[in-house]
């Protein structure tokens, strides 16, 4: 196709504007495919905020409400579960393990979670990844705390630092448990889940800091000091009377609905058991609009990029009418003129798309570790997914459309101009 050689030489002649068009397409494709990939990863990460847990049990409220406070540490439980009910659930024959959760206190804006060692053993997120300690150990002492990665990074804590827990969940609280400071025993590796924003202590510790605080504030003279509380703990007097929620792992998933029904029908107390996967998917449907909006915005960026190409092509047409009349005079058909413009548009779009994808892989290779470290998101550097392939195909199709629009205009011009040289 000699006309394509001409198209190429003509493009080289206008290499500066061609390069700008190429880059604008490449960058917009990088953004589009990058957002698509990130979006899949975020959705995956979200619906896998909790994995391996078969049921989440709390006091009876709504599934989303329970999910919000038990998993995302957002809002408060309307009611607690009594320790006896928790024991009953833990002792159900089909239950393999339980993770009790006690919420209600905070540390400088981050939620404090009282739990047990089973949390570190059984909590799973993102397709069966367990919690790992970046530094230190799980809590051993009553006043040990294990920090989520974001807590440690934001507040600049290191192992051994003392921290004071505030009563209630506000960032600014006048009621601080200053009489019983904690020590940072461990810092967790990033997970990309709410775990990163949580301060973990033992269940007993939650009880301990509230000894003498039964009225909601430190009772003068009645609040024992830390040493006295440790002695209290040794006697087992710090077993909590109530917890906020329980994560339940079953011996077999087949029993899920059976256990769920058993919990929901528990006669002693109104309880609610939910399937985390289902509730997370429901919640995602609610907040996933943002992610789709993000994709829409990046698609709009591609459209803007292609409009730039259309503008560049149409602007060049007027300057190229002489070129077209000359080509017509040596025997080029109007269809050749269309091919000249279309070839340019297709070339720019194809190379722009390829360059954009290459750029994305470059960014992922260089920036991937940083994203994993900061956000806990692992963005795969695999080949483009079918959805990404479809997006790329749509971009190229739109480029062809732009080429056809500009090419048709050139075709009409060359028909009407004939061998007239207009300058």
């Amino acid at each position, binding site marked *: 196709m000699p006309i394509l050689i*001409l198209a190429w030489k003509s493009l080289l002649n206008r290499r500066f504007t061609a390069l700008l068009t190429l880059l604008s397409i490449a960058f917009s494709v990088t953004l589009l495919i990058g957002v698509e990939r990130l979006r899949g990863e975020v959705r995956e990460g979200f619906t896998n905020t909790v994995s391996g847990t078969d049921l989440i049990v709390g006091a009876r409220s709504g599934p989303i409400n329970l999910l919000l406070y038990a998993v995302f540490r957002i809002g408060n439980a309307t009611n607690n579960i009594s320790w006896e009910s928790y024991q009953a659930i833990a002792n159900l024959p089909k239950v393999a393990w339980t993770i009790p959760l006690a919420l209600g206190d905070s540390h400088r804006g981050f939620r404090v979670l009282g739990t047990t060692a089973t949390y570190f053993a059984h909590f799973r997120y993102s397709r069966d990844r367990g919690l790992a300690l970046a530094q230190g150990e799980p809590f051993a002492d009553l006043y040990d705390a294990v920090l989520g990665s974001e807590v440690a990074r934001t507040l600049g804590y290191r192992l051994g630092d003392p921290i004071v827990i505030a009563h209630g969940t506000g960032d600014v609280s006048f009621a601080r448990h200053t009489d019983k400071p904690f020590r940072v025993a461990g810092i967790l590796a990033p997970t990309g889940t709410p775990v990163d924003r949580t301060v973990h202590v033992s269940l007993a510790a939650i009880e301990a800091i509230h000894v003498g605080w039964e009225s909601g504030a430190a009772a003068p003279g009645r609040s024992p000091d830390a040493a006295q509380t440790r002695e209290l703990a040794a006697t087992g007097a710090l077993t909590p009377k109530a917890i906020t929620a329980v994560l339940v792992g079953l011996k077999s998933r087949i029993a899920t609905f059976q256990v769920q029904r058993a919990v929901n029908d528990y006669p002693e107390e109104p309880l609610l058991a939910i399937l985390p996967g289902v509730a997370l998917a429901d919640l995602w449907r609610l907040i996933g609009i943002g992610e789709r909006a993000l994709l829409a915005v990046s698609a709009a960026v591609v459209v803007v990029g292609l409009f730039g190409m259309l503008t560049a092509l149409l602007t060049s047409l007027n300057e190229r009418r002489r070129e077209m009349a*000359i080509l*017509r*005079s040596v*025997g080029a*058909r109007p269809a050749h003129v269309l091919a000249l413009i279309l070839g340019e548009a297709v070339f720019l779009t194809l190379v722009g798309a390829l360059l954009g994808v290459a750029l994305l892989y470059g960014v992922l290779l260089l920036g991937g570790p940083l994203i994993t470290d900061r956000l806990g998101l692992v963005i795969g550097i695999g080949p483009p997914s079918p959805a990404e392939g479809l997006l790329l195909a749509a971009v190229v199709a739109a480029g062809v459309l732009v080429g056809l629009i500009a090419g048709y205009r050139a075709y009409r011009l060359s028909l009407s101009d004939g061998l007239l*040289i207009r300058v």
Partner: protein
Amino acid sequence: MTAVPVTSPAPAAIAIRDLRFRWRADLPPVLVIDALDIQPGERIFIEGPSGSGKTTLLGLLSGVLPVSDGALTVLDQPLNRLSAVERDHFRADHVGYVFQMFNLIPYLSMLDNVTLPCRFSRRRRARALARGGSLNAEAVRLLAHLDLDDPGLRARPVTELSVGQQQRVAAARALIGAPEILIADEPTSALDADRRAGFVELLFRECREAGLTLVFVSHDASLEGLFDRTLRLAELNRAAA
């Protein structure tokens, strides 16, 4: 040459009978020519003021414009019966065209400009190859004939050539692959007065050598005497009257 043989008329290079051209079916014709015959190898000077239909006639002869009515036969091809694509093919194969100015494609080298018609016509490509061995060799040969044999000149971007040099490159392009008809649309009007005759002489030499029919449009009457015949379009075109 005085008596025209009735029995075996040599086929005319260009033959027009009752030709009409109108831009739209509902508009009056802008070009009406009852009869015109141009013999092969003839060098015709077409003279006419602006608006006399020169551009239209050249558009029809080169097959860019469609004939509205009547017969236009070029080299035995009835252009009035050919489709637009067939006429484009016909032009690529048989017509060399030289514009008034701005003949060259700025992003192509001098040689690429000259060999451009060979990209659109197999026939001219084959003929150029047969003559020169390679397209570039044939282009160099033609350029040398037109006094453009300086290799240093060939290396320069064509936009840096003088107007006279550009017109000669355009002539080489119109001549490559030996088309039968050469149409020149005021090719000398951008040249200095003392260069015009020289350019026309160059064209003549090449046309004579290749047996080309030359249709040369100009309003520079000083060149008229060099040609075999002069057509006054204002008289020929009844629509203009």
